[in-house]
């Protein structure tokens, strides 16, 4: 963590009474806590959970009251906010932290932030905010800087310190995902920034209010710094109100239980969280080493609006290694990851923690007792100067999720291998879907006001296939298990687009014995905006949601927007217009709309101008498949055909299913013919496949000749240069000379 103003621990002004416990400053508390953990391996060195063991009912009641206070704060605050992202999709979360910044309990919502706000509080402590600018009752602090403690810049955090008789008892923290963050390109996962100086409004853990009131100068600064000041203001009030509700809830608990009990409780709750996590690891998984890799595409070569060093095609490497030790040790490493870059996908360690915890809380610890104890039970290696830990200050982080989302499918697949081996099949998942396309833009809205747009429809994508059932269709987002697609009517109110259609998108799910959850599609007309730029942000050239156990990856993205579309003319003449694109091989948009079709794999681009009546297409991804598709139950294939999940011609080529339509137009699979066809496909596999050892010989020749695309060669060289260990593994696997590097000639 960066420390801008280093000072000696414990340095205080004369006569100042520290606000920590037992006469300590916060920094002394933090350092003592860390020392005791290093010495004992236990939070604050706690050996016995005396409160929990002596009076378990009381202990659980305190926990329930605290968690209830957090959930209540979230539910109430959400409904006083008008930002659609927050109100419609629940993009907020509240938590309570110890004085030294360890989370004790969280609300529901974007549980990404188990640890991110912890990092931000610790940043304030390490930088002696206690002395300057002071931490007093009624103060309000705010942060959105991932290098300090956050997932990405659009997750804006508010902190309120909670005091009891002159001592800091803890912190209330709240986070909302804001609509626009004032970056160099509009929206809240801006793809335009290529350095942190373009990421938009920076709140670097600032004091932004006192006496429970926000500073006027802070509010003016934010209003001027973002494109959607009204939503910003409402979201900020949501966070402040929620934090104040938490403060009230905590004060009531202390009044009822006594301060000494409460102090003991919060430390025991974290130590219990640590022990519970280790217990769950041993209960659910298998010790050993798990490896899974994902690749992320940034097809920006030739992109107008970017300097030449940023306008390049990049393939990013996200190798995920999970090591489970005999004592339940849980270690994640991204050794070998690609270098950080001049784009906004860089992920500081806090962002990486955000992704880890949003997934572990949905898999390993899907209960209400989630806190930093679980964080303390895990260890991590995020190699410096990589996308997983850029280190350098200028690395832009506005769209960190662009790397996090694909990179962490590796964690899900690895956990699933352990769960499968253990027999807990009900928990096994293939890769979740990418929450893409991010339909993003900005300019003037339909009311003539300045706006930034990101349709949060992308909160509803397919889950990965399960080992006993298909994935869930258009369900939620990996970063928000409560996400949904929102109401069309609400989106039409707040963004200058009109829906032409919203429906299931066939063939988005990864095929398999069990398929991934399907994605869906929305087709829009740009509507009543006189000044708007739009962009696509998503995968297109890689398969970022791989399958497992023989299942295929989910489909990769593409773009199909139409500039100068003849839509308005079609409306006037009463002619047919497109509402969807079920099959890009027979495009409805192409058939029913004239204009300049941007129909390609440029799925990540700089914003470009669109006009009233132009067409923007956005389709949302499916999850990865599980198992050999030839083992899929024909009844499930029939269902898919009849529900537009699967295009008919793929029933045969993927599943070997011989299907026909009955007199009512319903698809029926011929079981006998299917069995025969599947046997033929198996025979065909034997003819077309080769032994892996033969493949390795041929592939090694390809490597030595450099017969691999330049962006791929660059990716390998970066990983070889950044990690000796990964480089040695690569070179030893292929039996390459120690000084091997790919040529980077065109």
């Amino acid at each position, binding site marked *: 963590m960066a420390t801008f103003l280093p000072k000696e621990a414990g340095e205080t002004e004369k006569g100042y009474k520290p606000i920590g416990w037992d006469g300590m400053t916060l920094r002394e508390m933090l350092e003592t806590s860390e020392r005791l953990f290093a010495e004992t391996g236990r939070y604050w060195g706690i050996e016995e959970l005396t409160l929990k063991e002596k009076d378990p009912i009381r202990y659980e009641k305190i926990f329930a009251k605290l968690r209830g206070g957090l959930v209540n704060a979230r539910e109430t605050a959400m409904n006083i906010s008008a930002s659609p992202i927050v109100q419609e999709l629940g993009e907020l979360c509240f938590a309570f932290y110890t004085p030294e910044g360890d989370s004790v309990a969280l609300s529901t919502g974007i549980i990404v932030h188990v640890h991110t706000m912890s990092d931000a509080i610790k940043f304030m402590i390490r930088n002696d905010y206690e002395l300057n600018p002071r931490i007093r009752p009624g103060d309000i602090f705010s942060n959105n800087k991932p290098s300090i403690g956050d997932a990405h810049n659009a997750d804006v955090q508010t902190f309120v310190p909670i005091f009891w008789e002159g001592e800091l008892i803890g912190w209330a923290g709240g986070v909302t995902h804001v609509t626009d963050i004032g970056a160099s390109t509009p929206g809240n996962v801006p793809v335009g920034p290529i350095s942190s100086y373009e990421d938009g409004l920076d709140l670097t853990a600032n004091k932004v209010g006192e006496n429970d009131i926000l500073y006027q100068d802070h509010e003016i600064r934010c209003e001027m710094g973002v494109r959607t000041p009204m939503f910003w203001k409402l979201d900020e009030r949501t966070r402040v109100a929620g934090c104040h509700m938490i403060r009230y809830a905590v004060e009531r608990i202390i009044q009822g239980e006594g301060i000494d009990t409460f102090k003991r409780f919060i430390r025991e709750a974290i130590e219990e969280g640590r022990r519970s996590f280790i217990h769950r690891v041993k209960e659910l998984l298998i010790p050993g080493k798990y490896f899974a890799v994902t690749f992320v595409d940034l097809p920006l070569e030739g992109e107008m609006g970017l300097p030449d060093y940023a306008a390049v095609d990049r393939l990013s490497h996200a190798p995920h290694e999970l090591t489970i030790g005999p004592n339940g040790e849980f270690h994640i490493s991204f050794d070998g990851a690609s270098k950080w870059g001049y784009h906004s996908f860089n992920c500081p360690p806090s962002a990486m923690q955000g992704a880890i915890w949003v997934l572990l809380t949905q898999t390993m610890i899907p209960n209400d007792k989630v806190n930093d104890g679980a964080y303390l039970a895990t260890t991590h290696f995020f190699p410096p100067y990589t996308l997983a830990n850029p280190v350098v200050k200028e690395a832009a982080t506005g769209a960190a999720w662009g790397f996090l989302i694909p990179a962490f499918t590796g964690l899900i697949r690895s956990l699933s*291998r352990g769960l499968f081996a253990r027999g807990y099949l009900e928990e096994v998942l293939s890769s979740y879907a990418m929450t893409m396309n991010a339909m993003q833009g900005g300019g003037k809205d339909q009311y003539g006001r300045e706006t930034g747009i990101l349709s949060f429809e992308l909160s509803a994508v397919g889950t990965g296939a399960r080992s006993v059932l298909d994935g869930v269709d258009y369900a939620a987002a990996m970063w928000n298990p409560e996400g949904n697609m929102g109401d069309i009517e609400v989106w039409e109110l707040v963004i200058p687009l009109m829906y032409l259609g919203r429906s299931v998108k066939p063939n988005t799910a990864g095929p398999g014995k069990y398929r991934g959850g399907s994605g869906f599609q929305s087709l829009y007309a740009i509507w009543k905006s006189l000044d708007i730029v739009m962009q696509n942000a998503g995968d297109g050239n890689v398969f970022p949601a791989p399958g497992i156990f023989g299942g295929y990856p989910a489909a990769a993205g593409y773009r199909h927007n139409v500039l100068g579309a003849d839509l308005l003319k079609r409306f006037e003449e009463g002619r047919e217009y497109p509402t969807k694109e079920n099959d890009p091989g027979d495009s409805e948009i192409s058939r029913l709309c004239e204009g300049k079709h941007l129909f390609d794999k440029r799925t990540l681009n700089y914003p470009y101008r669109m006009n009233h009546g132009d067409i923007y297409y956005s389709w949302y991804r499916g999850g990865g498949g599980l198992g*050999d598709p030839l083992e899929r139950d024909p009844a499930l294939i029939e269902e898919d055909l009849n529900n537009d999940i699967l295009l008919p011609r793929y029933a045969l080529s993927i599943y070997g299913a011989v299907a026909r339509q009955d007199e009512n137009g319903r698809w029926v699979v011929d079981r006998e013919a299917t069995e025969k066809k599947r046997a033929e496909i198996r025979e065909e596999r034997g003819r077309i496949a080769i032994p892996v050892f033969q493949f390795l010989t041929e592939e090694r020749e390809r490597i030595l000749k450099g017969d691999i695309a330049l962006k791929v060669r660059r990716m390998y060289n970066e990983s070889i240069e950044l990690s000796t260990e990964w480089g040695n593994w690569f070179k030893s*696997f292929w039996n390459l000379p120690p000084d091997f590097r790919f040529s980077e000639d065109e």
Partner: protein
Amino acid sequence: MPEYDKETIEKLIDGKLSWPEVKRMMSSFKDPDRFDKYVQILQDRVDWEDKILLPLGLHLYIVQKADGSRVVKCDCGFEFGDYRDNWKLQALIYVRDTEEKMQEIYPPMMHADPEWVVLREYYCPRCKTQLEVEATPRGYPIIFDFQPDLEAFYREWLGREI
């Protein structure tokens, strides 16, 4: 702690439990004897005698042979060799590295660009079941998905020798 009978676990393995039943299992505490019941069911289903030590996938197991060696074995009987080596090295492979090959699985535009990544399909040499699919760029080493620490699992976690 819940306890499930053999029939329920068999239904789970076969995908015959309804979503509400699966959901109840997910929301409950875990049944500590699951592993033993699960392995016993799998053992009863295979035609060979080697003892299953750990299931690795829908068709793959680490088994102990009569001579004491531990190998990866397909339920069809094919043996992939020592479990500490990557079983994929003994498999058949088919690489989808052209648009035409990818379009047998994905509609046009909805697949990766083979210049960026290809699909590597691994089949069992005997039964030709598709056991894994990797999506990697050209030149990526064969992925060793999972290297279990069998000794630690049995001794430290299950409290018994293998």
